[in-house]
């Protein structure tokens, strides 16, 4: 049974994903993550990682400059708020379009090279954007302070429709629904579901097949007389649009855009999310983004007092030592945990968490006679989707 190019398994996956996303506030509350601020971060960075995965997971091009598109998306969204309307819909549409255009320009040049040269080119463009945003482009980006809303912004559409925000600093709202708290999360959540659907369709399409072929052997593709560059460029632009959308959503939930979103360490973070979840898998990037944002939130909130309570069952000297050791990894030192986690994943589990889950499942489920490759796991890139 096939419908819109996806079989029954895919539809189950999609529906399951949507249900989990929409019931997020209930499902994640036992983990202490059931509040909208964190959940919308899951959704936004999930979108960012999903987009990155379309490029890296499918074509194997490792871009180190994706944060630039995120930043451009944020700036565009804030400018839309300032000039047109506080409604998030035009903001994210413009953010996506501008992210796409920007990535088309960068991708067109960067994709002339492969491998590490491609990584360096994207890195160079992202650093250029970051440096320019801090210096010359200050009239557009407001430099170090970051782009903010002001009370006397023109907001042409809002004025045309007779919406007046009075003397307070407005926040984004969707036809009267304020984009803070749960409405904000559901707005991002619905976007995530749409993006997941698009990503699923790409994975299962002939186009996705072509991208995988680019990854496995680009030379052979060229020998068959096929120009792979348009395919890679399309993937690059799609992932740039995802990043632009994610940046736009960041601005929707908090109308502020700063240049630090474009720094190359931010690009490293999305690479990490994708790898952690499992690059080339459908669900992996979203899980990776969720895990990182969750632990970032939990770990950086820890401080010595909480640690002392946690170790209060130990004798005092032991407690003291344990607090000293653990405090290296939490709070301010959260990046240390992140770096160590990153290394462990790359060393022991290059396939990411999805690979880990599959390994665990294989321990319990006896393999069908067809072997591991054909056991019909919907997420393996090995499986033939056509």
């Amino acid at each position, binding site marked *: 049974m096939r419908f819109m190019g996806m079989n029954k398994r895919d539809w189950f996956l999609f529906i399951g994903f949507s249900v989990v996303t929409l019931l997020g506030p209930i499902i994640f509350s036992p983990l202490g993550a059931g509040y909208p601020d964190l959940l919308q971060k899951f959704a936004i960075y999930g979108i960012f990682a999903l987009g990155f995965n379309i490029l890296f997971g499918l074509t*194997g091009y*490792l871009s180190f400059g994706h944060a630039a598109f995120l930043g451009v998306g944020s700036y565009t969204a804030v400018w839309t708020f300032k000039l047109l309307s506080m409604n998030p819909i035009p903001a994210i549409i413009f953010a996506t379009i501008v992210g796409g255009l920007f990535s088309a320009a960068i991708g067109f*040049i960067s994709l*002339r*090279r*492969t*491998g*590490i*040269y*491609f*990584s*360096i*080119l994207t*890195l*160079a*463009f992202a*650093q*250029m954007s970051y*440096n*320019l945003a*801090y*210096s*010359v*482009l200050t009239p557009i980006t407001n430099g170090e302070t970051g782009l903010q809303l002001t009370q006397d912004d023109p907001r042409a559409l809002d004025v045309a429709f007779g919406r007046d925000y009075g003397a307070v600093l407005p926040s984004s709202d969707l036809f009267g629904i304020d984009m803070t708290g749960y409405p904000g999360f559901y707005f991002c959540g619905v976007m995530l579901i749409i993006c997941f659907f698009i990503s699923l369709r790409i994975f299962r399409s002939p186009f996705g097949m072509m991208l995988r072929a680019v990854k496995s052997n680009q030379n052979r593709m060229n020998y068959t007389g096929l120009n792979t560059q348009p395919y890679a460029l399309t993937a690059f632009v799609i992932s740039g649009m995802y990043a632009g959308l994610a940046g736009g959503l960041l601005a929707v939930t908090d109308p502020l855009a700063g240049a630090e979103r474009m720094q*190359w*360490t931010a690009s*490293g973070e999305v*690479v*990490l999310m994708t*790898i952690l979840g499992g690059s080339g898998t459908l669900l992996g990037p979203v899980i990776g983004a969720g895990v990182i944002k969750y632990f970032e939130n939990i770990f950086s909130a820890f401080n010595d007092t909480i640690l002392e309570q946690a170790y209060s069952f130990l004798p005092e000297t032991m407690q003291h030592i344990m607090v000293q050791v653990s405090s*290296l990894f939490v709070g301010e*030192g959260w*990046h*240390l945990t*992140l*770096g*160590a*986690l*990153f*290394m462990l994943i*790359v*060393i022991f589990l*290059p396939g990411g968490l999805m690979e880990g889950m599959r390994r665990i499942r294989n321990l319990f489920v006896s393999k069908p006679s067809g072997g591991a490759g054909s056991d019909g796991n919907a997420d393996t890139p090995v499986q033939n989707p056509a």
Partner: protein
Amino acid sequence: MDAILLQVLNGLDKGGAYALIALGLTIIFGTLGVVNFAHGALFMLGAFCAVSIKALLGLDKVTLDPTQTTAWGTPLEVRQPYVEVWFGDWGATLLEYSVPVSILIAIPVMLLIGIIMERGLIRYFYKRPHAEQILVTFGLAIVLQEIVKSIFGANPIPQPAPDSMQGMIDFGAFLGHEAGNVVYPIWRLTYFLFSLGVIGLVFAFLQFTTFGMVVRAGMADRETVGLLGIDIDRRFTIVFGIAAVVAGLAGVMYTPILSPDYHMGMDFLVLSFVVVVVGGMGSLGGAVLAGFMLGILQSFASMNEVKEIFPGIDQIIIYLIAVVILLVRPRGLMGRKGVMEG
């Protein structure tokens, strides 16, 4: 004319740092085939070698002087570094020249760090794809940087150059120009000469020793050298150590120019990678040439006259050049055929 000379001079020290880091990067890449994103962290570790040696030398002995009292009536605490107590004037000199002295200690320390890194982590990644090498060394860089941050804090720690090297040198008068137009800090000149010296040593080592010959052969064709019965892996471990030492020394000597903080490695890493790529992956001469070239170009771009024509050019010049070079000369300036072409 003076202005141009001054900009060239200004670019030399930064160019020296780029060249040293890029040299290590490209040696590692050429021999081991590993893209080492933790190389900036090695530069940073070198700088913190200097910081910790200064701190060690500066450990104070506290004695109470009963003849003098403070405003509160307690005996005055006299603090004197142990080295001065033990060695007198010679100790004071040692403390003052802590940055050059650090070099002697940094060499074995960095060699050890490099060898541990290679044996403990990098060697498992020889056969893995470049993307995974980049990622694991990136993770390692974050870990090293955070450890340094937790020990030394997040603020830059100034490291003064020795008094005798703190002044300026009137370079213009030296070349027969008008005096006072081209003045240049002595330490930066020292750094430039030092980097030239290190580069010369590395090249001499690779060119004139049997060990270096094996390494060069290994860079050209690793498999054949292995087939000839040479334990190439062991040599490459030492090569990694040497690359770590070069990066570390660059860091030690750079501390008086830029007060070290925990993220200085990351800042230099990105630029050094650009330098390596511009010079051509795996080409030693290219790395050095591109390092100095980009350093000097960067200093030209930060001239006010240039900035008036192209605003913001000083921020992006290096990346811009990298983009142009990669598009026009895919192999970089002096890249060898068949190395990472694409």
